[in-house]
């Protein structure tokens, strides 16, 4: 037998592009857990992989698009959502998932996020929130908590961060949830739910960054961060997203929004059909 045949195969290996392994993520990084939860969700839903499209921007988590063995697009920094919108509108039969970072989605690409949510474009956004720009070396970004240390805030951050679930809810998303990488089963279930819903969904994943953000903030090892998640996470389904804090002593997790509203694509198709009917009638 060849050495390769003797090796244990990961049960989700068929969903990955083996030739792209090993991945670039640091030991203890939360991105692997996020990816794993997504793949498990796909597996359990028995999704037709030909119908799934993954779009990501640029960043550590952005590499996910290149690792998953489905049709995927690794776009430019900040533009994952417009690319995904184009895919969805061109072929409404596809399930379009955006997997990207806090910086990509909420700094340089923030405008696209709020407008896609407002229009209720039928795409699922999974955001790896590690509180910094990991890929470029740990600068502060739009979710960096007040007082945190990063490479560009050596004496602490003085900018107020976004509350992502509040932003998504206020902008019009139909499904909004937040989990840390500790609550893997619930995270997977939220991803599954988002995949089955029509409309704009956000699943925020609070994710450890042991080599950069966590180190700068003296949060200890990846295991310490998981223990910290365990200690301070409070599950509050249906909680007011405006009050769902992410703080040193408390992270409110759960499902905050789960409503029904026609998606942009549906309204567009209905309108087109109506206009075409009208034109036929006039002939």
């Amino acid at each position, binding site marked *: 037998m060849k050495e390769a045949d003797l090796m244990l195969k990961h049960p989700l290996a068929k969903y990955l592009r083996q030739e792209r392994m090993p991945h670039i993520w640091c030991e203890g990084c939360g991105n692997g857990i996020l990816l794993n939860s997504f793949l498990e969700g796909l597996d359990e839903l028995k999704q037709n992989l030909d119908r799934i499209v993954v779009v990501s921007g640029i960043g550590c988590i952005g590499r996910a698009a290149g690792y998953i063995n489905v049709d995927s697009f690794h776009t430019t920094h*900040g533009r994952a959502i417009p690319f995904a919108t184009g895919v969805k509108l061109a072929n409404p039969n596809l399930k379009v998932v955006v997997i990207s970072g806090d910086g990509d989605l909420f700094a*340089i690409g923030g405008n696209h996020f709020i407008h896609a949510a407002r229009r209720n474009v039928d795409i699922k956004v999974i955001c790896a929130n590690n509180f910094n720009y990991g890929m470029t070396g740990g600068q502060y970004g739009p979710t960096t908590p007040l007082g945190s240390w990063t490479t560009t805030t050596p004496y602490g951050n003085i900018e107020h961060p976004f509350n992502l679930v509040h932003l998504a809810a206020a902008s019009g998303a139909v499904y909004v949830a937040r989990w840390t990488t500790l609550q893997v089963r619930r995270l997977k279930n939220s991803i599954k739910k988002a995949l089955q819903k029509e409309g704009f969904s956000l699943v925020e994943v609070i994710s450890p960054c042991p080599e950069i953000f966590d180190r700068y903030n003296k949060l200890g090892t990846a295991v310490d961060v998981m223990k910290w998640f365990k200690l301070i996470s409070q599950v509050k389904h249906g909680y007011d997203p405006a009050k769902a804090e992410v703080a040193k002593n408390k992270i409110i997790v759960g499902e905050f929004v789960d409503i029904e509203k026609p998606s942009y694509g549906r309204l567009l198709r209905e309108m087109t059909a109506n206009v075409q009917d009208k034109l036929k009638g006039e002939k």
Partner: protein
Amino acid sequence: MTTIKQNTLALNGDEAVALAVKQSDVDVVAAYPITPQTIIVEKFSEYIADGEVETEFVCTESEHSALSACLTASATGARTFTASASAGLALMHEILYVTSGCRAPIVMAIANRALSAPINIHCDHSDSMAERDSGWIQIYVENSQEAYDSIIQAFRIAEHPDVLLPVMVCLDAFFLSHTLENVKTLPNEAVQEFIGDRQIPLVLGHEGEKVPFKLDPKNPITIGPLALYDYYFEHKRQQEEAMREALRIIRQVHNEFAETSGRKYGNGLIETYHLEDAEIATVCVGSTAGTIKTVVDQLREQGVKAGILRLRTLRPLPFSDIKKALEGVKALAVMDRSNSFGGHGGPVFHEIRHVLYGTHSTPFVVNYIFGLGGRDMPQNAILGIYRDLQAILKTERVVEDVRFAGVRE
């Protein structure tokens, strides 16, 4: 020659830039991180946090906002700096033109990096070459020492009342940005004395009176309003005039800096190496010039009349300096670390052949596109180019004038 005591430090290109910015007494820095420029701004944020500079520092949410913030800061009379690369520079495109059009003397360091797609973080010049018509002065450096020196010069050039144009100082990604080198640094006072305070020229105000050209509530003026077919063209004509003036000012500032530091880069616009009696020569920009000079040394030892012209400023293009320097060269290879797709050659090639048109003894000219996405350009490949030039001289014929060096075909 200088008597100032200089401190030799081991710095990479990005750190050399950050130090020069620190010493240049900058009022505002606004930036967004992108590899391989990140070290510049990170280093600078350390200077700020440690109280070593009194600079307002803004980490914006994108490059478009970074340059917008710099533009308005500069319009109030502040000395302003930013840095970017690749996609970041591309995202600034709109504001690049607004900056030069508003005559805002911002200095920006570019760590030259390839443009997507495919995504790539390594060196080529496609980012800044795409912006060569944006009205910015462009200086390309060969090493980290020159990056340090050029940033200091850039503030003087940009802010000179006869110029008032933004300046890009371009350094090659990783080869310079991340590579340690011995860099001679001037004392703070020497740099500050050299640069001085930003001079604000007087312009005509709304009522025909003379007012300082800056946003100031005491003397209100408007910067950047609508100008249609009535006045737009005149603004653009003035920008061209400023570029012409810049040719003179870049040389002047470069010579003054040489007196302070003892360092010169040709005449500030172009630098030649063994070009005076050269029969075969290359033209290039950026760090590759260093490798080429080594190859020229080897060829000279073998008695080959080889030389090189390094273009330090691409904008403004030192048209007559290039023309004069290349007189007598019989076969010339123009090196491009970017391509103009479908344009029959790269941007530097276009410029150089354009200079050579109508000269009495036009040399044979070939173009080599090389090093895209950070591909190495080793000495033997450069040697191959000089051998090609020798063959051209011998056969007196150019078979293919646009060639690709070091690529799988």
